[in-house]
């Protein structure tokens, strides 16, 4: 028997028993417990196996710095690995197990890897992957792959669930004047000071209870103070967020918070997210994030039953659990004496081994009064026992060194190597720390940018001083707002009666000790020295070579020891070696919280056209086109997609087809200089475009490559209606705005995106005019002389729907685009469909649209991919030489004029029965390797030609390859197909159909 729950004391509610499962067995704890305190109350000391060596591990702390009690929580899809038992609030029905152990943490087959630990020393992975002896023998072979798999399996950090995450997560945003991080004695006082001055204050606390170190005090006085302060902050409307960690601090007072909303509940509520990811913008920030107690490196300092002194105090005073009965405390500072007294009063036998040669009489006498034996100039050397602690062998000071000094039996070893202020958040902002040799820790420098450190995070050790420090920080925050605040002097850094004796590792000549620096990543003192011997002496190299501080505790306890050992090896002082920069997150943030609601179908926005439902009602199968959903094909009576699109394309070429083209970008270009503007933007002339006419235009980027194409309709002297491709709608809008606002502010033009205001339908095919004539109120407007090729009219559909019609063609047939205000979209579709059916017309989707445009060699976003110039696209005729336009100059640079640039071509299979794939590379028949001579951007079956065709690019264009056979190389899917390249205008090259 060693750890046990006391019958009184602590903050747990003994009237509320909570049942939980640990390693498949039933246990119970109390409301107010963490999983760690409940395990300890049940004397479960062995709670996991280490990452690399599978060494038995127990609870080492009582907070976020935990590196031993890393466990898995939950079952099935809700199984979560790498949870700190020390911060997991206990709930009824909690299921937990240890990690990295099979079949159980008590008997772990993987522990045999510990026997080979000499192979797993620092740099093992690097050496293995680089193929350095003795492992290079298998590098790159099948054996090596198997062997790597085994290592990966042995060295792990729990198992990730394979099922999708069933929980929901939220993103939330807030603003405040002052953000106070930490609700201990400093944080509570800072919040009161700031809020009393009328400031809007948010107080965040990672724990489920407010109070910080107040919660760990044995006396009633601390609890009274705590309750009073909480009443005060509520009275001044401080907004309180518990179970919320400020994991990162960014520029402009932006803080990232993670709120664990239901992690403490057996079953999350269906109305609550599991976690909330907050972005809070604070004008000032107070960091009252506390300090963490450090360990010391000595032999077997990772055994279950070795923990920090403060942790034992927390388990006793907060949870009513006595962690051991025969306790050896090793220290180098004053902070342990109070806890030692508390433990002794709880009937434990306590001995203190203080590394210092002398301490004040007062300290020694007080300890003696509590029945504690204090031995000076002694330090821990090696822990005895394997799965539990059975004793401690000690070291005695021998000058500045240590020599073996006998053995004491004990069941708990508590260690304090000093305290480190938690300055991670300040470090995120680039705040610097200075080494304070008097207190053997890094303390934050003052930081100008409205960030104020308070309490032990500022290196202030005593609780009363921390309260004052909080008030000072609160007042400083108030002054940030130009308000007056009481002037108080900040408490000095430190506060111990006797100086600390810096102590990071106990080395005794002749003793081979396994002394851990970073237990979670199994990094030992020997590993740090190995890194030094091999030349990895900079802190950043040390970290990467040994993986020190790279486990999910981010080296909260171990980094300073590693730094100190490297300093010793280099013969330097710690500040000369440096400190590593902390980066967000302070504690792990789940991927789910980062995603928030942006998962599954909400991963990105979904855009539906206003005739979406109408399309579905008429048999559309939809496909994604960027963010848009567009009709893909309209299958009839069990048709396959291929059968459907071939029928749709054939019907469109022979009768009439209707296609939803709403996703095209639409921009209203208005103003007295609109014509001049368009004339500069497009490569072809727009200066003389008459009212009531449309023109196909190409726009280039500054560098001479094609940006986009589309038609622009002149509606009046000063108004144009521009359409863009679906893919580039947003980009073109931004580009036009940039030109008008940044480059040509003298032009009087306004551009407005009207993509969502107008719904569009293409009406294509030889019977398209007949179809439309039946749909408009005045059929005469559809006559060839009123609406010739590229003509535009504004008219009304039957029933009075206002519409814009242009006679333009993407399909190569006689065709029109009809636009109506979006709300009329279903009505327009119905009117058009009612008239198309008697003409044996059809609805067609993007697949048939692709067929029609590939047959004609019309380009889309697949061709205009940002690497193509206007000549490459076969549209060189569209480039005016009578005016200047954007991209005019650089499209003529030498690289753009090379004869062998890839040019747009059509592609036929040599054997017309064969098919081939988009994405294939076009290679010379004798060189099917490398990047080839070109590529294929789209393929389709051409009903018009009766075989498969493609569109793509080939070096020099089709003329350069006339009569030659190329290979469409697609080794991963179809294999190689012999093809010939032809003019991209594969159907009706003269364009007679659309002009007719």
């Amino acid at each position, binding site marked *: 028997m060693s750890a046990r729950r006391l019958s009184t004391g602590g903050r747990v509610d003994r009237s509320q028993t909570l049942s939980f499962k640990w390693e498949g067995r039933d246990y119970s704890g109390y409301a107010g417990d963490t999983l760690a305190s409940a395990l300890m109350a049940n004397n479960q000391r062995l709670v996991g196996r280490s990452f690399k060596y599978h060494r038995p591990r127990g609870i080492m702390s009582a907070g976020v710095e935990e590196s031993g009690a890393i466990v898995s929580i939950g079952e099935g899809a809700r199984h979560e690995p790498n949870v700190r038992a020390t911060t997991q609030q206990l709930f009824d029905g909690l299921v937990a197990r240890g990690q990295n152990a099979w079949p159980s943490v008590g008997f772990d087959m993987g522990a045999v890897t510990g026997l080979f630990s000499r192979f797993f020393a620092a740099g093992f992975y690097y050496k293995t992957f680089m193929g350095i002896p003795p492992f290079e023998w298998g590098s790159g072979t099948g054996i090596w792959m198997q062997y790597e798999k085994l290592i990966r399996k042995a060295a792990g950090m729990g198992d990730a669930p394979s099922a999708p995450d069933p929980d929901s997560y939220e993103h939330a945003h807030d603003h405040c004047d002052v953000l106070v991080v930490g609700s201990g004695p400093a944080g509570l006082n800072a919040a009161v000071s700031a809020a009393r001055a009328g400031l809007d204050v948010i107080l965040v606390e990672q724990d489920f209870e407010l109070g910080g170190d107040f919660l760990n005090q044995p006396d009633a006085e601390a609890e009274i103070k705590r309750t009073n302060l909480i009443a005060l902050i509520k009275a001044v409307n401080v907004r309180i967020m518990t179970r919320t960690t400020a994991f990162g601090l960014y520029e402009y007072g932006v803080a990232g918070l993670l709120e664990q909303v239901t992690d403490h509940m057996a079953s999350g509520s269906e109305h609550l997210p599991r976690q909330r990811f907050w*972005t809070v*913008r604070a004008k000032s920030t107070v960091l009252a994030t506390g300090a963490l107690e450090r360990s010391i490196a000595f032999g077997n300092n990772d055994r279950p039953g070795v923990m920090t002194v403060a942790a034992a105090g927390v388990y006793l005073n907060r949870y009513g659990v006595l962690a051991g009965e025969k306790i050896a405390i090793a220290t180098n500072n004053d902070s342990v004496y109070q806890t030692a007294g508390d433990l002794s009063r709880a009937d434990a036998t306590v001995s203190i081994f203080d590394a210092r040669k002398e301490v004040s009489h007062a300290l020694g006498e007080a300890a003696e009064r509590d029945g504690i034996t204090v031995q000076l100039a002694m330090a821990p050397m090696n822990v005895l026992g394997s799965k539990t602690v059975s004793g401690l062998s000690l070291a005695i000071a021998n000058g500045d060194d240590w020599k073996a000094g006998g053995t004491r039996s004990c069941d708990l070893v508590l260690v304090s190597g000093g305290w480190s202020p938690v300055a991670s958040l300040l470090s995120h902002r680039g705040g610097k720390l200075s080494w304070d040799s008097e207190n053997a820790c890094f303390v934050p420098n003052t930081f100008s940018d409205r960030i104020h450190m308070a309490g032990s995070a500022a290196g202030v050790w005593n609780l009363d001083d921390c309260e004052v420090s909080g008030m000072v920080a609160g007042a400083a925050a108030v002054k940030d707002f130009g308000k007056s605040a009481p002037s108080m002097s900040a408490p000095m850094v430190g506060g111990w009666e006797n100086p600390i004796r810096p102590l990071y590792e106990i080395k005794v000549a002749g003793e081979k000790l396994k002394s851990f620096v970073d237990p979670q990543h199994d990094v030992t003192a020997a590993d740090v020295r190995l890194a030094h011997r091999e030349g990895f002496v900079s802190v950043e190299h040390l970290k990467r070579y040994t993986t020190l501080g790279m486990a999910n505790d981010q080296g909260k306890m171990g980094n300073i020891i590693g730094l100190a050992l490297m300093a010793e090896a280099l013969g330097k002082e710690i500040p000369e070696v440096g400190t590593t920069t902390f980066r967000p997150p302070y504690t792990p943030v789940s991927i789910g919280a980062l995603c928030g609601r942006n998962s599954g179908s909400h991963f990105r926005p979904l855009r539906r056209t206003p005739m979406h439902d109408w399309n579905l009602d008429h048999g559309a199968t939809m496909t994604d086109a960027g963010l848009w959903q567009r009709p893909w094909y309209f299958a009839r009576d069990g048709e396959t997609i291929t059968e459907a699109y071939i029928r749709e394309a054939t019907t469109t070429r022979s009768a009439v087809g209707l296609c939803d083209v709403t996703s095209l970008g639409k921009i209203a270009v208005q103003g007295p200089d609109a014509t001049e503007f368009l004339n*500069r933007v497009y490569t072809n002339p727009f200066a003389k475009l008459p009212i009531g006419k449309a023109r196909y235009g190409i726009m280039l980027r500054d*560098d001479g490559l094609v940006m986009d194409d589309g038609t622009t309709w002149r509606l009046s002297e000063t108004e144009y209606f521009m359409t863009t491709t679906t893919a580039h709608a947003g980009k073109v809008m931004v580009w036009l705005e940039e030109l008008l*606002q*940044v480059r040509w*502010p003298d032009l009087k033009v306004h551009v407005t995106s009207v993509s969502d205001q107008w719904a569009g339908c293409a009406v294509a095919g030889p019977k398209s005019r007949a179809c439309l004539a039946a749909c408009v109120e005045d059929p005469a407007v559809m006559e060839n002389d009123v609406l010739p090729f590229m003509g535009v009219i504004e008219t009304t559909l039957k029933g009075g729907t206002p519409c814009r019609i242009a006679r333009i063609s993407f399909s190569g047939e006689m065709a029109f685009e009809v636009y109506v205000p979006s709300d009329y979209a279903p009505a327009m579709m119905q009117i058009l469909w009612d008239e198309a059916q008697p003409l044996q017309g059809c609805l067609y989707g993007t697949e048939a649209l692709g067929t029609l445009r590939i047959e004609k060699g019309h380009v889309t976003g697949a061709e205009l991919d940002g690497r193509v110039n206007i000549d490459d696209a076969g549209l060189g005729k569209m480039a005016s030489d009578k005016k200047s336009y954007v991209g*005019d100059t650089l499209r003529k640079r030498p690289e753009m004029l090379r004869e062998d640039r890839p040019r747009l071509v059509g592609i036929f299979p040599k054997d017309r029965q064969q098919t081939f794939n988009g994405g294939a590379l076009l290679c010379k028949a004798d060189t099917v390797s490398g990047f080839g001579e070109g590529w294929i951007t789209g393929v389709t079956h051409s009903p018009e030609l009766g075989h498969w065709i493609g569109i793509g690019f080939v070096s020099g264009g089709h003329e350069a390859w006339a009569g030659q056979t190329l290979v469409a190389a697609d080794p991963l899917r179809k294999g190689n197909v012999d093809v010939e390249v032809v003019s991209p205008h594969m159907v009706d090259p003269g364009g007679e159909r659309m002009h007719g």
Partner: protein
Amino acid sequence: MIRIPCPFCGERDHSEFSYGGDATIEYPALDASIANWHDAVFQRQNICGMQFETWQHLNGCRMWLVVERDTMSHEIRSVRPAHTGMAKALEDET
């Protein structure tokens, strides 16, 4: 996260904006030489410290802005509309 004070909308997260480029580039006339256009399009300084850059308030008023920002600290010293007429109109209003 940078916060950018839009002269029209007020201070907003930088995620509402999209970055343009170097605001000090003077684009030559459309028919200027290849050498002039080459320099305007491809030659950029890599400034450590304060620089003028364009941003667009994409998910706000859509105004193009000239932002004076320290590339080391993200400190923003000034923000103004890129369009001089808009800058003047806003000034006149206040």
